[in-house]
């Protein structure tokens, strides 16, 4: 199973789950599986069909923008991370 780490701000939409197991052979496919399991996430990750530009996705520490974008291949051993921008500091 491929795992996706859910960042703190989005755990509200995954019933508090910190990681979710997903299936699929590309970033697009596993994110689709994720939003099917947790539909409330969809609006936070996607603007229409496009991944939102303030939500970064990493496959094994590498930004998918440096790989093949949403088409980046994903295997069962891969660990994905969603890292949205946060601004807190005060």
């Amino acid at each position, binding site marked *: 199973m491929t795992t996706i*780490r859910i*960042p*703190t*701000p989005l755990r*509200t*939409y995954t019933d508090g789950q*910190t990681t979710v197991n997903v299936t699929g052979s590309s970033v697009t496919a596993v994110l689709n599986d994720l939003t099917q399991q947790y539909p*409330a996430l969809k609006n*936070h990750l996607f603007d229409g069909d496009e991944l*939102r*530009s*303030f939500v*970064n996705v*990493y496959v094994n*520490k*590498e*930004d998918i*923008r*440096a790989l093949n974008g949403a088409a980046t291949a994903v295997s069962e051993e891969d660990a994905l*991370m969603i*890292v*949205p*921008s*946060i*601004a*807190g*500091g*005060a």
Partner: protein
Amino acid sequence: MSVLSNDEIRRYSRHLILPDVGLPGQEKLKQSSVLVIGAGGLGSPVLMYLAAAGIGRIGIVDYDVVDETNLQRQIIHSTSDVGRPKLESARQKLLDINPYLEIDSFEVPFTSDNALEIMAPYDLVIDGTDNFPTRYLVNDACVMLNKPNIYGSIFRFEGQLSVFATEDGPCYRCLYPDPPPPGLVPSCAEGGVLGILPGTIGALQATEAVKVLLGIGEPMIGRLLIYDALAMDFMELKVRKNPECPVCGDHPTVTELIDYEQFCGMPAHDHSDYTAAPALNGQEAEEKTPVPQITPIELKARLDQGESLPILDVREPHEWTISNLETYGAFLIPKGEVLEHLAELDPQKEMIVQCRSGGRSADVIRELQKKGFHKLLNLDGGINRWAEEVDERLPVY
């Protein structure tokens, strides 16, 4: 002759015997200058450690006043400082830690008009701000002036750390080209933050600052640290310099500072939860239209006349346990779940929408207006203002 006095040499003894610092390193720190933007959660530990470490000159930008709700995490300020300007409180604490320090105080909002001038004299900048407009401003100004930007940010139990805008390294815009649309990412004032978290991230920022100033070790250039306090997990990700970056790329299109509030569609305010309500501060983002308001006193008067007014509370369940208007028939549907419960709400009936201080409830009203609800009133100032003006038995949080 050293730039350090004998008293200072005694003070920095543990640094002087440290192989990578030594007397030359300590002298370098003494001759270094750092600008810290924000004397709050991140700024507190950053300032205290940099002062103790012997940085010669520290500039601080902050125009806020110490508030009781700051004390849970802003350890540079104490209970006796409540009501004082943060700069005054910070200055006193820092000079008590290290009297050999020079401190420059900038008690102004950090804006596109003053950013370059304030930043120019310093070797390095530490971003301890709390909102997207100011973070993009700090980044762009650092890139334009070639100042390393030691970045940290926090939310609930999670923190991020990186070093941006060095000679060949990426900048904040390489990591996040665009800010999130207003309302999609909650602020700490809205989502909460573990008081110790800014301590952890701030201490790491101070560490990176000293490393960059001394040219030792491997600073977090091109790397992003994600810290999960609950899992006690430190994860490291790669940040690539984006050749297309509008600020630091090969062909920059942003070559002077812009209007960052417009860029982010939100005001650069500390307590954005409340001040983001457009009608209140005159700095409204274009997307945020004013919503009909009702003050707590007006609402109380109408309820006392026996009017039946449903009150929709859009906070989170753990906030409901702190204070609520259940005795007046209030019911809870958290902001993120309101659209799923549309069928339970009557668009024909007048209804009050309420949160902690009026920001989230205004967002909900704007959303519901699009779904045909036109009889909604926002409780101005939220339950906190109700507690202050109508029912003093309720706590303010």
